[in-house]
C-alpha cells in the first residue's frame, strides 16, 4: 500500500464512521418533525442509532466467537464432525498439554505475587524520597514497550557464550566474574521458566506500583504518625498497617495480572517457542491453530481452558460493578 492510498483509506474510514452518526441523526430529526407524536418516537429510536455499530461489532467479534469456540471444542479438527469430549480426553493424556497447564499454574503463582510485592515495596519507598517520582517513572517504563521488545532486551541479558569466550550477556558476565560457569539459561528446564517470568515481573511491577502509589495516598497520615509515636518500626508499620489497609487494592492488582498471565503468549513465542519445557497454553493453542493444517477442535479446547481460568474473575468483576452502580 502506498502512502497516499493509505491516507485515503484512513480518511475514508473515518468519514464513513462520522457520516453514519451524523446523517442517521439528521434523518431522524427530519422525519420525526413531520410526525405529530415526534418526541417519543425520536427518543425511542435514537439510542439504537447510537449503539448499533458498537453492538454489531460486539456480536460479531466477541459474543458469536465465544459461543462458536465452545461448540468447536466438541468437534473434530475441521469443525464439521461432532466428536463429543474426545478432544478433552486427548488433552488429559497429552504430555505437552499437561506441561503447559503446569507452567501456566507456575506463572499464576509467581508473577502476580512478585509483581504486586515489588510494586508495593517500590511505591512505599518512593513515597518517602524526593526523587521518588523519577524512580517511579523509570520503573513504569517497561509498561510502554511490547512483550516482544522486552523479549529482545532480556534475551540479550541471558545471552550465552562458551566458557572460554567473553560473555556478552549481562547475567553470564556477572556469574563468570563471581567465579562460576556460564549457563545457557533458556535451556535449563524449570529454571528457564523462572527466567521468562522475570521478564513479565519486570514489566508488570510498574503497573502494580502506580496503582499502589495512588492507594497509599489514601491512608490517613494520623494513623501512621500514631504508630510511629508508639515506637513502631518502619517495617512494623508496613506489615501491620499498610498491607491490611491495602487489601482490596492488592486483590484488584492480583486479578489484573492474573488475567494477563493466563494469556501469556508473546514472550514465550519470541524467547523459546515452548522448547525446553517452557510451553504455555496460549502458545500451544497458537501452535495447534496451524499445526498439521490446523486443528480447530484442539485449539478451541485450549482457549476454553484459558477462559475457565478467567470466569471466576469475570463474575467477581460483574458483581463489583453492580454494587458500584447501586451506591
Amino acid at each position: 500500500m502506498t502512502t497516499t492510498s493509505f491516507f485515503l483509506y484512513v480518511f475514508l474510514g473515518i468519514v464513513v464512521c462520522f457520516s453514519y452518526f451524523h446523517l442517521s441523526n439528521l434523518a431522524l430529526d427530519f422525519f420525526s418533525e413531520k410526525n405529530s407524536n415526534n418526541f417519543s418516537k425520536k427518543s425511542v429510536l435514537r439510542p439504537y442509532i447510537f449503539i448499533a455499530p458498537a453492538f454489531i461489532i460486539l456480536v460479531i467479534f466477541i459474543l458469536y466467537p465465544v459461543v462458536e469456540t465452545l461448540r468447536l471444542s466438541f468437534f473434530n479438527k475441521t469443525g464439521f464432525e461432532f466428536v463429543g469430549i474426545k478432544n478433552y480426553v486427548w488433552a488429559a493424556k497429552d504430555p505437552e498439554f499437561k506441561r503447559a497447564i503446569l507452567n501456566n499454574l507456575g506463572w499464576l503463582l509467581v508473577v502476580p505475587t512478585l509483581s504486586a510485592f515489588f510494586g508495593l515495596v517500590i511505591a512505599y519507598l518512593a513515597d518517602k524520597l524526593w526523587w521518588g517520582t523519577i524512580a517511579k517513572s523509570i520503573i513504569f517504563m517497561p509498561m510502554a514497550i511490547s512483550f516482544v521488545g522486552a523479549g529482545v532486551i532480556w534475551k540479550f541479558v541471558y545471552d550465552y557464550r562458551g566458557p572460554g569466550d567473553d560473555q556478552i550477556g549481562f547475567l553470564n558476565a556477572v556469574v563468570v566474574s563471581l567465579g562460576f560457569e556460564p549457563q545457557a539459561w533458556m535451556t535449563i528446564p524449570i529454571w528457564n521458566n523462572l527466567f521468562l517470568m522475570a521478564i513479565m515481573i519486570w514489566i508488570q511491577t510498574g503497573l502494580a506500583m502506580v496503582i499502589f502509589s495512588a492507594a497509599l495516598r489514601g491512608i490517613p497520615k494520623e494513623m501512621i504518625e500514631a504508630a510511629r509515636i508508639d515506637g513502631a518500626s518502619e517495617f512494623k508499620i508496613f506489615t501491620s498497617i499498610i498491607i491490611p489497609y491495602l487489601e482490596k487494592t492488592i486483590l484488584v492488582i492480583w486479578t489484573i495480572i492474573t488475567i494477563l498471565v493466563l494469556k501469556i503468549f508473546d514472550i514465550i513465542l519470541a524467547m523459546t517457542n515452548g522448547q525446553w519445557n517452557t510451553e504455555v497454553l496460549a502458545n500451544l493453542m497458537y501452535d495447534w491453530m496451524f499445526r498439521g493444517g490446523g486443528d480447530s477442535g484442539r485449539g478451541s479446547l485450549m482457549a476454553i481452558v484459558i477462559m475457565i481460568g478467567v470466569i471466576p474473575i469475570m463474575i467477581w468483576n460483574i458483581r463489583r460493578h453492580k454494587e458500584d452502580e447501586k451506591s
Partner: protein
Amino acid sequence: MNKNILTKIIINLLLLLFVVVWVLPTFGLFVSSFRDKDLLATSGWWTTFNTNEVNEIYRTKTFEDQIEENGKFFIKGNLLVKNSGKKVISYGITSKEMNKYKINEKAILKNKSEIEISENGEYVWKSDEPFKHERGKRIFITALSPPKFTLDNYKEVLFKEGIGQAFLNTLTVAIPSTIIPLIICSFFAYALSWMKFWGRDTLFALIVASLVVPLQMCLIPLLSIYNDVGALFNIGAKSYPGVWMAHTGFGLASTTFLLRNFIKSLPNEMIEAARVDGATHYDIFLRIIIPLSVPAFASVFILQFLWVWNDLLVGLIFLDQVPSEIILTAKLRELLGSRGENWEILTTGAFVSMTVPLFIFFALQRYFIRGLVAGSVKG
C-alpha cells in the same frame, strides 16, 4: 536520631537498587544499538566506554609495491584504516603466535626478511632478495580500540532488514485501529450512560464481562469468518481493513468501559438543563460531552494505540507475513529466529520498535499512566 538517618540511607539504597535493576537491561540494549557490530559480538556492552583490546588480521601489500633502496627491497604501508584511532600493541606472523612480537620489535621470517610494525600501524618489510609474493602476507595484530559509536546499525536495520517498512506497516495498522473504536465507542458509552432504552443494564454487564474475555476465545471462529468473506468476494482473507476491524472488536469493551465511566461522572444537571432547552441527545453529545471528555479521550486513545502498536498475536493471525504487511513485533520475532546471533540487528530493531511507545511515555506521561491503569483490565 542516628537510627532515623540509617533508615533513610537504607531506603535510598534500596530504591536505587530497584531502579538500577529495572533500567540496566534497557540501557544495555540502547547502548548496544550504537556499537560497532564486531565489537558487539565479542564484548559486553558495559565495556563500550572502555578502550578495548581487539585482535585483527590484515594483509600487507604485494610485490608490485616494493621499492629498492641501496640494494635492499622494502614494502611500506599502514595496516590500519585511517582515523580508526586504534593503537597496535603487539603482533604476530602466524596464527599460532599472534602476540609474539611487541611493537618496534623485528619479526624475522623464514626467508630472512624482516618486518617491523609501529604503534600507529605503519610497517616496513625489508628483504635482501626481491619480493615475489602475489598475495599480501597475513599479519595478526592486537590493538587497543577507543570507544566508538556508529549509526551503521540503524541504516542497515531500517533499509536493508525491512524494519523501516515494518514500522510504516505498524503505523498503518495502529492509527485507524485507534480512531475507529474511539468514534464508535464514544456514542455507545454515551447511550449507556444517559439514554434510556430496553436492555441497557444487561448490555453494560455484557461489556464488563467482555472486558476479561481472552482474545484466544475469538481467534478461531474469526479466522474462519475472514476466510469465508475473503472467498466470497474472491479477495485475500488478510488485509489492513480486516485488522482494523479486529482491533476495533478487541478494543471495544475496554474503550467503551473507560469512556462510559467518565461520561457517567459528568454532572447530571448540565445534561438535564440542555434537555429542557430542547436539545436532542445528538446535540448534547456533540456540544457538551465531546468538549468535556477530551482528557478521557486522550487517555483512551493512548491506551488503545499502544495496545495495537505492541500487539503481536492479532498481527500474526490477521495479516500476511509478507514485507508489505508484516508489523514490527512480528518482524522482530522473525529476526529473533533467523538472525538470533546478530545482536546489532536485534538490539537496533527492538529499539526502533520502542521509539514510539517511549516517546508517548515521556511526552504524555500523565495521560499514559491514567489510561494504562484504568484500562489494564482489558482482556
